[in-house]
C-alpha cells in the first residue's frame, strides 16, 4: 500500500472544502448563481447578497462543527483501537441534549441553550470517565460501555422532559436533537472557533502517540508513552470538541464515525495525516449536507442530522456488509 504524500492529501481535502463551501453559499431554498452575486445593482443582486450574508455564517458553522466531530471521531478511533468509535459513544450527546432540554423547559431564554448543552456534555463526559475508571486507570473497554449506559439513561430523561414540554419547546428541542444550523450567527461561529482551535492543537500534538495507540495500548506503553496521561488528554480534547459542536449545532450523527473511516481508506491510518484530513473532510461534508438540507424540501429546511443519517446509515450498512 502506498501512502499518498501528506501535502497532496491535505490539498485535496482543502479543494473539497472550498467546493463544498461554494455549494453551501449558492445552493439552498433560494438558488443563486455567481453572476447574481458579482453583478452590480438591481434587486436580484441585492437579494442574492442578502441571502449570502445569511448563509455565510451558516456555512462557517457547518464547516467548524463538521471538523470538530470528524476530528474527535478520528482521535477516538485511534485511542480506543476501534474503527467503530464515534464521538457520541462517550455519552456527550445525551448529556448535552438533556442540558439544553432542561434549560428550555425551565423557561430560560433559548439563547441559554449553548451554555446549558455544553454543561450537560461536560457533566456526562466526566460521569462516563468516572465510571470507566478502574484502579486509577482509564479502562478503555469500560469507557465504551459506560458511554452506552449514559446515552441510554439520558434518552430516558429526555423523553420524560419531552412529555411535559409545550408544543413550541418540544418542536425546537426536536430540531435541535436532529442537528440544526438554523441559528448560525457570526457570534456563534466565533464562540466555537477557540474550541476547535484548542482541540486541533492538542490532538495534533498527540498524533504520533495516537499512532502507537492504534496498534495497542500496551504497544504505546512499551514504546515509552505515558498512557494514562495520553488517554486523559485525548479524552478531554475529544469531549471538548464534541461538547462544543453539540452545544452550537445540536446532535449530528455519523460524521464522527464515517468521515474518519472514509479518509482512512484514502490516506491510510497515519494519524499525522489522518487527523487533519478527517477534520477538513468533515467540514466539507457537513457544509454540503447543510446545503442539501436547505434545498431538498425548500423552503422548509430539514434538520441537518436527518441528512447525515440518511446518507450515513446506508453507507455504514454497506461498510458492514463489505467487511463480513
Amino acid at each position, binding site marked *: 500500500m502506498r501512502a499518498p504524500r501528506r501535502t497532496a492529501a491535505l490539498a485535496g481535502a482543502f479543494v473539497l472544502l472550498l467546493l463544498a463551501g461554494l455549494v453551501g453559499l449558492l445552493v439552498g431554498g433560494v438558488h443563486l448563481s455567481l453572476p447574481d452575486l458579482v453583478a452590480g445593482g438591481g434587486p436580484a443582486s441585492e437579494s442574492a447578497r442578502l441571502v449570502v450574508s445569511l448563509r455565510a455564517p451558516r456555512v462557517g458553522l457547518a464547516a467548524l462543527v463538521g471538523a470538530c466531530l470528524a476530528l474527535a471521531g478520528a482521535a477516538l478511533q485511534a485511542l480506543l483501537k476501534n474503527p467503530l468509535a464515534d464521538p457520541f459513544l462517550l455519552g456527550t450527546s445525551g448529556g448535552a441534549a438533556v442540558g439544553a432540554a432542561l434549560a428550555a423547559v425551565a423557561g430560560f431564554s433559548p439563547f441559554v441553550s449553548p451554555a446549558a448543552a455544553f454543561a450537560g456534555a461536560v457533566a456526562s463526559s466526566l460521569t462516563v470517565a468516572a465510571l470507566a475508571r478502574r484502579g486509577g486507570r482509564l479502562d478503555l473497554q469500560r469507557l465504551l460501555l459506560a458511554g452506552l449506559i449514559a446515552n441510554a439513561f439520558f434518552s430516558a430523561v429526555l423523553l420524560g422532559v419531552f412529555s411535559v414540554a409545550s408544543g413550541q419547546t418540544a418542536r425546537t428541542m426536536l430540531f435541535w436533537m436532529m442537528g440544526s444550523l438554523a441559528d448560525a450567527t*457570526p457570534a456563534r461561529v466565533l464562540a466555537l472557533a477557540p474550541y476547535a482551535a484548542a482541540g486541533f492543537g492538542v490532538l495534533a500534538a498527540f498524533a504520533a502517540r495516537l499512532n502507537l495507540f492504534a496498534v495497542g495500548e500496551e504497544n504505546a506503553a512499551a514504546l515509552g508513552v505515558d498512557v494514562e496521561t495520553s488517554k486523559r488528554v485525548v479524552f478531554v480534547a475529544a469531549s471538548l470538541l464534541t461538547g462544543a459542536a453539540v452545544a452550537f449545532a445540536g446532535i449530528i450523527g455519523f460524521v464522527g464515525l464515517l468521515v474518519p473511516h472514509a479518509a482512512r481508506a484514502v490516506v491510510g491510518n497515519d494519524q499525522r495525516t489522518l487527523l487533519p484530513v478527517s477534520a477538513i473532510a468533515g467540514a466539507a461534508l457537513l457544509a454540503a449536507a447543510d446545503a442539501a438540507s436547505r434545498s431538498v424540501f425548500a423552503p422548509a429546511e430539514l434538520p441537518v442530522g436527518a441528512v447525515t443519517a440518511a446518507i450515513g446509515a446506508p453507507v455504514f450498512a454497506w461498510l458492514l456488509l463489505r467487511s463480513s
Partner: protein
Amino acid sequence: MHAPRNSERSRRGRVPGLSGRAAEPLPPPAGKSPPAAPYALTFLLGALAAALACRAEQEPRFEPSVEPRRVVSLAPNLTEIVFALGAGRSLVGVSEYSDYPPEARAIPRVGGLEVSAEKVASLRPDLVLATREGNAPGPVSALSSAGFSVLVLPTGSLDAVLDSVRRTGDALGRREQAERLAESLSARRAAVRALVGKGPRPKAILLVWPDPPQAAGGGTFLDDVLTEAGAENLVRNRPGWPVVSGEYLTAAPVEVLVLPASAANRPAFERALTSGGLSRGAARRARVVWVDESAITRPGPRVFDALEKLARELHPETEHGTGNTEHAR
C-alpha cells in the same frame, strides 16, 4: 499411559493459541487519583465561551426607522394584525398558515413553524415580524444578526395581543389605526366581562387535541381566553399544555368541554367523543362547545370575535345561545 516419542512430538508442532489467552492488563496499585483541575478548567472555559456567545445575541432590539414598505410576517396572527391595520399591501412574505384574510393566500410563503431564514432574506424585507412564543428562535436570531430589522411580539395573553397591535402599528407608521383598533378590541373585552359579571363560572377544559388529550393549562393564551369568557379552567394549576389522562377526564368535575375544531381535526374529536377518551364518565356528561380553531387559537383581532361567541355559549342564561351546543349524545 505411554508418552509419544520425542521425535514425533517435535514434528507435530504446536497448536496455535494454546499458549494462553492474551493476559488482561493489570491495574496498577491505587495511586493518586487523576487531577480534577483540567476538567474544571475546561468546564469553566466552556461555560464562559457559551455565555459570551449568548451575550452577543440578545433578543433582537428593534429601532423603528422609516415607514417600512416590505414587511414579512412569520406568524398567521401577525399577518392578520397587519391586514387589520390596513397595511396588507406592504406584506411581501408570510408564514405558511396565513390564510386570513383571503388576500393573504396569494402572498409568497416563507415556511411554517420553522421559517426559512434565507427565503425571508431573499425578499429584501425592511421589517420582519415574529412572535416570541410561536416562532423558533433560531431563524429569528439569524436574521437579526444578519442586520435585518426584526420585531418580536408577545402573544401569551389578550393583553399581549393589544400590546402587539399597538407596537406593530408603531412599526408600520400607523399609530392612529393601531390605537383605534386596540381601543375597540379592549372595549369588546370589557363588554364580555360585564356580561359574564358575577355569574356562575362553569368548570371547563379546553382541549387542543383529543388523542392524547392535551389541554390548555395555566399561563397560556387560551387559558386567558377561557377565563375571560367566564369559565373556570380546571387545569389552570398545570402550566403549559399538559396531557391529561383518561382517568382524569372521567372523574374530574368538568361541566363544559371547549373544542377548537377545524376541518382537519374535527373527525378526531368526533371519534374521541363517541368512542374514545371523551366518551366516558364526566367527559361524557359534559356539554360540548365547538369553536372555530383558526379564530380562537391565533392571538389576533379575530380572537375577540371568538371570545364573544364563547362567552355567550358558556352563559346561555344571559342571552339565547346560537344552537351551537350539544346536551346529550
